[in-house]
């Protein structure tokens, strides 16, 4: 027994970082990045700028949570940017054109997003359409519907309180939208880490046949995951609408790639079964901090795109190397 105890204690230090889902490498990268920017720009290291970064990452942060779930089961979702736009447009139309209260518009927008996810999930499980294709199709279709609602026009002007969700800092710190993102992250992390249903995602991503033979309803879980991802994309759309105080059908263009990049930088494996929300939070922060810092340093937006590309390769390459050598 004595020897067993020694071994378990020896394991402890490793386990204290386990909430990151093995993303210690990205965390070190984030810290180095912050250190560099703190020296390079005198504006970077301030509470105000920190809160700014949090405001800037809310949309992608919320979407990345859903994407993490999808990628964990070995899937991919290219439709999140379009679903975001669809959700925004439905909310805008119902509230502003049809004249219903926001309390009706927002649930309807989320419901429409859920339907998008349901369709993708059914295509992937029942009709065995590869996730890449099913979500590529949804990316096109949802964008089209978003455009059809107002024939491509934007809708402006929402209630005062709605706009304030993204502006008003409660207790001088958090806006409602940032708070929402943090809640989404925390709840999703708890669910993934400790709920039976959360562990199912790892089993399915690790090996769907093992999961099926272990009595897990792989199809149902897969549909659920795509619906979850789509609903979060819709929620991100509502957050974006609050931030912009307007909705337009071209919103969220290319967001799917930013989202996937954040998840992958955070150490979640594209082949599924490994990673988690802790890593994704770090991935989102890396992208947010990098954008913010490069802006502070007056780096041109085009060069920023190049730098982000390089960071993706560095982060994923370093992580792959680290796993191999271990």
């Amino acid at each position, binding site marked *: 027994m004595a020897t067993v105890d020694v071994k378990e204690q020896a394991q402890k230090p490793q*386990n204290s970082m386990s909430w990151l889902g093995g993303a210690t490498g990205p965390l070190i990268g984030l810290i180095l990045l912050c250190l560099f920017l703190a020296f390079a720009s005198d504006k970077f290291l301030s509470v105000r700028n920190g809160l700014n970064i949090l405001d800037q990452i809310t949309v992608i942060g919320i979407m990345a949570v859903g994407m993490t779930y999808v990628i964990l089961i070995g899937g991919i979702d290219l439709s999140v940017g379009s679903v975001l736009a669809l959700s925004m447009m439905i909310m805008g139309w119902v509230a502003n054109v049809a004249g219903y209260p926001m309390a009706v518009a927002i649930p309807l927008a989320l419901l429409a997003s859920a339907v998008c996810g349901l369709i993708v999930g059914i295509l992937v499980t029942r009709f065995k359409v590869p996730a890449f294709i099913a979500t590529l199709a949804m990316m096109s279709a949802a964008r089209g519907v978003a455009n059809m609602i107002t024939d491509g026009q934007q809708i402006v002007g929402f209630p005062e309180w709605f706009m304030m969700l993204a502006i008003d800092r409660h207790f001088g710190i958090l806006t409602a939208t940032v708070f929402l993102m943090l809640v989404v992250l925390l709840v999703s992390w708890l669910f993934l880490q400790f709920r039976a249903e959360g562990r199912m995602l790892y089993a399915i991503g690790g*090996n769907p046949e093992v999961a*099926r033979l*272990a009595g897990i*309803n792989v199809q149902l879980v897969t549909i659920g995951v795509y619906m979850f991802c789509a609903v979060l994309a819709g929620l991100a759309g509502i957050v974006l609408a609050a931030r912009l105080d307007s909705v337009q059908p071209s919103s969220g263009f290319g967001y799917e790639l930013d989202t996937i990049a954040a998840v992958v930088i955070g150490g979640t494996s594209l082949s599924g079964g490994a990673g988690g929300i802790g890593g994704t939070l770090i991935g989102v922060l890396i992208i947010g901090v990098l954008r913010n810092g490069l802006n502070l340093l007056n780096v041109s937006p085009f060069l920023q795109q190049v730098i982000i590309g390089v960071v993706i390769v560095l982060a994923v390459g370093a992580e792959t190397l680290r796993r191999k050598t271990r």
Partner: protein
Amino acid sequence: MTEPVLSLRGITKRYGPLEVVKNVSMDVYPGEVVALLGENGAGKSTLSGIIAGSKTPSEGKMTWLGQPYAPATPREAIDKGVVLIHQELQLLPELSIAENVFIGRWPMKNGRVDRAQMVARAQEQLSRLNLHIPATRKVAGLSTANQQLIEIAKALALDARLLILDEPTAALGGAETEALFEQIRKLRAEGVGIIYISHRMEEIKKITDRIVVLRDGERVHEFADSSTPVRTIVESMVGRSLERMFPARAVPQEKTVLEVKNLTGANGAFNDVSFSVKAGEILGIAGLVGAGRTELVRTIAGADAIRSGEIRMNGEKLSLKSPADAIARGIVMVPEDRKLQGVVVGHKIDENLVYANLDRFGNGWITPSKKRSFADMAIRAFGVKGRGEQLASDLSGGNQQKVVIAKWLTRDPKVVVLDEPTRGIDVGARAGIYDIIANLAKEGVAVIVVSSDLEEVLGVSNRILVLAQGRQAGMLDREQANDVSVMELATI
């Protein structure tokens, strides 16, 4: 006597303080088949890796055809004529046979791949192996045995003078094994040296000229004569004398637990099969590869669909739409392919144990402490040599299999189906699995064991169902059954 093709002198391989191969010397002569025997972890794969250039020895020298030989990469070894054929086949299913044979070394003409020559030369190697299929055919859809032969053809096209075969028959049935042996004999007659790694004693006795036994990295024995009794060989492998391989069989109870009536699988792999299993009974299912054994038990476990017929449990008709349905009724399966169906190899042992029991964590919250205590309990109960936080891929085959079994047995199942429970598992660890099977029966579980290993089916079962080409060829009581009577039924 002729010169050896390959000589090893004092080969040692260390990983840190751990010596996995210790001071091994051996020779391989042209035109002989040398068996390399040993339990998992005895150092067989490390040694064959050293010979094939994928690992470098820490100490020792090798000579190849009289010249010093120290390959730094597999490519170097292949260029010299040493080819290792892995247990897991490494063919590209969507490419043609010819392309697989010449992959990476396409014959070129005017800067382009010379397809005509490639196909012709591949065909030549195929006919050398008595394989009469066009070299232009896709690999996908070929039987495992033929794919095995294509791996060998690939080696021959490289002008191999030493072949290392790692468990070549692991996925083959009786007739296919015999066909492979015929080709091995032919190659031997052509002067190719062969190192043959296998766990199957009957095969080793049949095909090899000499047996080298490794234990804990050391060469402990060499049997120059393959007529040495199996027991003697096995004892030298495990380093202790074997009392008996199989535990005593329990007497089945009266109560019939599982009844299968006129069952036909949706994919047509088996037709009109009927049998029953009593509580505490072990039913063996024998037959050649492709006889429908795996499909039959997968159907019983809810993994495959039924076309017609019925499955009854305790008299009640079951309608199984998924493995989850079967599990809920107490029917669990230890599947055929451990690494693809049994465990998620890249995940931890405790995670793997939990995956099959996610519904049993009371309110659905799985805290680390609950997970650990559940895993520790299962690990201890089944003697898995490992800790919960280790990756499943770190375990030996035998211990992985114990994890697969352990994840079910904590559920108190009524019917346990084991498909090839000891495939790729060394002799010492097999006894542990047999004990688990016997204990299940003793506790009143109805057990079904599918195995290609005749000795195993005969050793563990109370009755044996023999399938041949999807038909029920016969049902033998233990008393009437022997390897001859089973094979007769299986091959009609």
